[in-house]
């Protein structure tokens, strides 16, 4: 596993989908007027006969995708996370989730990675999708993982919501990394505290783990890209004996990864103190940069360190997380 700043790549999702679709004519690509932004211009340009631009009509797009899946196609639906989940929620319920159809809904630009304000910031998409029976919900962290996720979900029997960062995608994992639909990744063991993270918060969680270790805290780290079904066994096992658990997600703390971990720990009788890093039941705002929003809404490496420190009940000042400046084309956590 690399350390920040990370190199970045462009369109790992779009390339992975195209590679799969070349060899699998069941795959149909739908776009809601955000084709380049969702990396499927690659698909459109090479396989135009299986590319459907639904225009700005998310409800209709989901209905079409449901019928295509019913007829034996494997539809991948693309738009921003806000439009993928808020607008067609009833359509996802009735045309996809309830009939348990293999529709893949891919929502780009998660949480406050968009500086475009509340209308463009998918802060509760994981919670909405997680609440639906039959849905699998994935918040992928890097380019290596994204490629494997796409391959893993093609033949998954039910619907999937995949949440993806837009633009420059960091390369965090080594090529040996193996994504699993069913197992969370225990990246580091630790007896004092545990951090559980995914998506865009994984890099911050990695650094926070290092910072806590340097301060004498034996801190474990679990990467849980599949929020539903959460691999509760791995989380509970990693939390055994620790005094503090911190979750970190680029999402509201209501209903997402933090909630899923809380449910798993409580049901297992794990008594560790829990802190959830994420949007604290608030909408964000428009800005110039996502960096500013991650800082404003406490989604930083320091936020994770502070949360762990507080949960451990330490009276000393919390250790200070380093900043790891990223050059153009690189990516570092805030």
């Amino acid at each position: 596993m690399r350390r920040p700043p990370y190199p970045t790549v462009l369109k790992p999702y779009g390339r992975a989908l195209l590679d799969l679709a070349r060899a699998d004519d069941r795959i149909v690509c739908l776009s809601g007027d955000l084709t380049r932004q969702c990396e499927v211009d690659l698909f459109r340009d090479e396989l135009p006969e299986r590319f459907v631009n639904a225009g700005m009509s998310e409800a209709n797009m989901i209905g079409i995708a449901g019928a295509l899946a019913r007829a034996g196609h494997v539809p991948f639906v693309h738009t921003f996370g806000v439009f993928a989940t808020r607008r067609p929620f009833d359509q996802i319920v009735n045309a996809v989730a309830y009939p348990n159809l293999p529709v893949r809904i891919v929502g780009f630009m998660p949480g406050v990675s968009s500086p475009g304000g509340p209308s463009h910031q998918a802060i509760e998409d994981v919670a909405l999708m997680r609440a639906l029976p039959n849905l699998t919900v994935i918040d992928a962290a890097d380019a290596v993982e994204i490629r494997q996720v796409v391959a893993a979900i093609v033949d998954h029997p039910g619907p999937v919501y995949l949440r993806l960062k837009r633009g420059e995608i960091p390369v965090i994992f080594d090529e040996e990394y193996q994504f699993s639909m069913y197992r969370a990744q225990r990246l580091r063991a630790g007896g004092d505290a545990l951090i559980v993270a995914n998506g865009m918060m994984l890099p911050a969680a990695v650094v926070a783990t290092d910072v806590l270790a340097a301060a004498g805290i034996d801190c474990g780290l679990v990467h849980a890209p599949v929020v539903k079904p959460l691999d509760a066994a791995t989380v509970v096992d990693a939390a055994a004996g620790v005094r503090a658990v911190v979750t970190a997600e680029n999402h509201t703390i209501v209903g997402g990864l933090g909630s899923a971990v809380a449910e798993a720990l409580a049901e297992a009788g794990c008594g560790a103190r829990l802190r959830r890093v994420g949007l604290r039941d608030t909408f964000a705002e428009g800005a110039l940069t996502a960096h500013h929003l991650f800082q404003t809404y406490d989604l930083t490496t320091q936020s994770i360190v502070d949360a762990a420190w507080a949960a451990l009940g330490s009276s000393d000042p919390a250790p200070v997380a380093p900043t790891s400046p990223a050059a153009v084309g690189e990516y570092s956590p805030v």
Partner: protein
Amino acid sequence: MDLKPESPVESSGELAELADRIRLRAVRMVAMHGLGYLGQALSSAEILATVYRRVYRPDADRIVISPGHYVIGAFAAAAESGLLDPAALATYGHDGSRLEAIGTERSPSVDLTCGSLGQGLSAAVGFALSDRLRGRADARTVVLVSDGELEEGQVWEAAMFAGHHRLDRLVALVDANNSQVDGPVAEITTIEPVADKWRAFGWHAQDVDGHDTGALAAAVEAALEADRPAVVIARTSTTTGLDCLPDNTDGHFVKLPAELAERAAAELEARLA
């Protein structure tokens, strides 16, 4: 039982008779409960009779009943067409039955029905698109839509998409019965001019008397010939075909106590005799 599709009925008189048989089966289904979605079956009886004899070929085509409340009519029509064991109709709406009163994934004999209104046209568009992707040039997708559903924006998203892509194997029938839960559609939201709206979205549109089987048969024939998606707006009422229903009947959810149910069945049986 051995289910065997009926051969196509040719005359409009036979279609009218089939419509009354659909009504009679619907009366018996609703009579078991004393109330239910009888009005939908009464308004759509001739539409369904025409669809099941003149448009929908079970082996080749797909049928979508967009408003799930109409599935009673589809069950009756399927039972009259050898596609559903008539004995199953006796379980309609009962605990544990797959013949639920509002259509679901368990509903037999239809490719899709939607309890949440306004969604069926998108699914029909998806089926038609699938046939085009697979080169199934002869396959038809037929979808029943209600006029109240036209208040839902998704219908027009789907209509615009189908028009743009000229999905000419798609045929929609709108049961324009001017009935929704809170009263006549016309009093709640003006949807007229309905045919002009569909034409403006790139559809071949016809506006006909939805209880006139001759007019319906001619309209679906023209719809199947059209070089674009086609809609037949069928003007109907939720009480047609049953003179015994009181004037103040709520067409969305008809009360049918035992005595009225007996008179209704007798009226239809006399006409069918």
